[in-house]
């Protein structure tokens, strides 16, 4: 136990936590933008799987990482358009239509993988990029500044999202249609278009999360995400719709997982308790939901379709 707290191990745990947090963060930030506009998207896990498969497939065929990333983004955007039509044109109940998207993404990516690929073949992974100067810093350099590009993108997107939602006209419109769509409407803001764009952003980022996951692993398999997208949705509530808090939640989740794995690798946790340890994040999330539900108000119009009076 004592040698667990050596510097190397801690640095590795933090590094691993940051790496694990990346897809949660990307998906969670996207979901935040969507929810801020009043749209709950429970389907991001399915979107992630579809995007992950397309990125995997494109890289497998072309060996071009850039094309893979673009393919994943494109599929995320297409799913965004679908979800926009479902929630805005058809005004379907969001809790359930999202589950539909999830089931579809799960099944369809599985189907495509089995038919088009079959044997899991490894693909090129994203390279690690060491940020000049910063990566040479003692301790933090290795933990924070030696990651793949999408990890940096994810963390850069945190301030970007904060600025976008807080300072840009469009971001303010998003928040307006999420809080009081009728008032926004009467002020000349197109509720539907604003929500379309927010959904598009959310799904594209979910797509990017899937891409980050698959290009970090270098391999695809059916149900690659194992419910990651649902945790990301929970993180949005956990983070009270604030990007910085969503980031904190994602990091916490990543660090807990990394710590558990590190303890397992050193045979510190008895095997039989590893499942109990794995329950911890979900239990913690429920506890956080209980505490936060009393104090924090989300977007007032969340999950409510907009119907002009």
């Amino acid at each position, binding site marked *: 136990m004592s040698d667990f707290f050596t510097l190397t*191990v801690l640095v590795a745990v933090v590094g691993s936590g940051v790496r694990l947090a990346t897809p949660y963060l990307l998906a969670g930030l996207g979901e935040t933008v969507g929810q801020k506009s009043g749209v709950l998207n429970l389907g991001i896990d399915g979107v992630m799987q579809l995007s992950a498969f397309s990125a995997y497939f494109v890289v497998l065929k072309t060996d071009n990482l850039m094309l893979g990333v673009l393919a994943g983004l494109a599929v995320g955007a297409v799913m965004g358009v679908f979800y926009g*039509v479902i929630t805005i044109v058809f005004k379907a109940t969001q809790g359930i239509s999202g589950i539909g998207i999830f089931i579809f993404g799960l099944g369809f990516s599985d189907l495509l993988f089995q*038919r088009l690929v079959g044997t899991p073949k490894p693909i090129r992974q994203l390279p690690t990029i060491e940020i000049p100067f910063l990566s040479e810093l003692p301790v933090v350099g290795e933990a924070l500044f030696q990651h793949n590009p999408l990890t940096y993108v994810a963390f850069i997107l945190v301030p970007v999202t904060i600025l976008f939602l807080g300072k840009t006209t469009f971001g303010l419109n998003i928040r307006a249609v999420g809080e009081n769509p009728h008032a926004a409407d009467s002020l000349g803001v197109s509720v539907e278009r604003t929500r379309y764009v927010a959904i598009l952003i959310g799904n594209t980022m979910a797509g990017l999360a899937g891409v980050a996951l698959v290009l970090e692993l270098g391999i695809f398999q059916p149900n690659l995400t194992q419910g990651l997208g649902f945790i990301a949705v929970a993180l949005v509530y956990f983070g009270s719709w604030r990007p910085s808090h969503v980031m904190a939640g994602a990091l916490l989740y990543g660090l807990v*997982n990394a710590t558990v794995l590190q303890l397992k690798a*050193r045979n510190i946790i008895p095997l039989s308790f*590893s499942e109990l340890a794995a329950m911890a994040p979900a239990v913690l999330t429920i506890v956080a939901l209980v505490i936060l539900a009393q104090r924090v108000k989300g977007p007032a119009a969340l999950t409510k379709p907009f119907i002009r009076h």
Partner: protein
Amino acid sequence: MKKNRLFRLLIAVFALALVAAACGGSSAEDEPATTTVPTTEAAGATGSETTEPVAAPLRVAIVAPSAKDDLAFTQSMVDAVNALDRDIELSITDGTFVIEDAAAAIRGYAEDGNDVVIAHGTQFGASLIEIAPDFPDVTFLWGTATDTQGLDNVFAYSPAADEGGYVNGIVAAGISESGIIGVVGPLEAGDAVAYIKGFETGALDGGAKSVNITYTGSFGDVALAAEAAQAHLVNGVDVLTGSAQMVVGAVGVASQNDIPWFGNQANQTSLAPALVVASQVYHWEVILEEMLSLRDAGVLGGQAFEINLANGGLVIEFNPGYDLPEGVRAAADAAIQGIIGGTIDTGF
């Protein structure tokens, strides 16, 4: 309002265009597969066999928990059936871990008139107790299992996975500089346990300082397997192995960090051509042939078979692309001979 409708229309057109593009792309990609897949899977899997049905071919069906081309447990059986020197019509239902579905598939294949139905998963045993007596003319193969549960139309099969594990362990210890070796397993169950136990004994006998074993708790979670491998690396591990289908995640980590890898169940060289040192490969065909010969002779079941190093059912396939030092290779061969000769205890 008008503008709004236009926007919707644009979105719809955009969506349709993308869908069309996506479908076009995938259908073009799928064309070759379409031509090779009539009703038999053999054609799809290997592209050979299933031609000219002179006499009625033997109809064999496999029901398996993971994908037929998982580079692991299920693929080992598919490859084995395809390797048989017989006229065989093979059908496969893969990816069915749920017992209920597997039971339905097993029964369905028996009803469809298959001669041999392979229930390729320990967990299907309980279903066989119910199904096998209903089809006395069908031979059921069940593994991994060491007894036939008293059913006379069931053959049981199992691998002595600890044997190859031991050999891999010896080699792993031979090439490790840190003397610390990492293992990534699924649940602590099935042949993974035997392989890992044998590996641990072999590595320690071969002079390794410690063998760190992580069971991720899931057969499916590749990401967790990858991160478990990462965690090993931090602890000074410089050689990795693993068992079950989710190891592909760990192999990815190995290849990113130039860590040698040892495979189990099927030849995993294709996952990391430069780094896979050796794989213990299950060659079920050795015992399959025996079982089918027994069936030809009118014995439909009632016996248990094991593949091991001695009968050639377990083969350590070294990757020619990996430059293994002479001495280590010699130690491996000695270990194989020792196990066959019964002078080595794999600790399982």
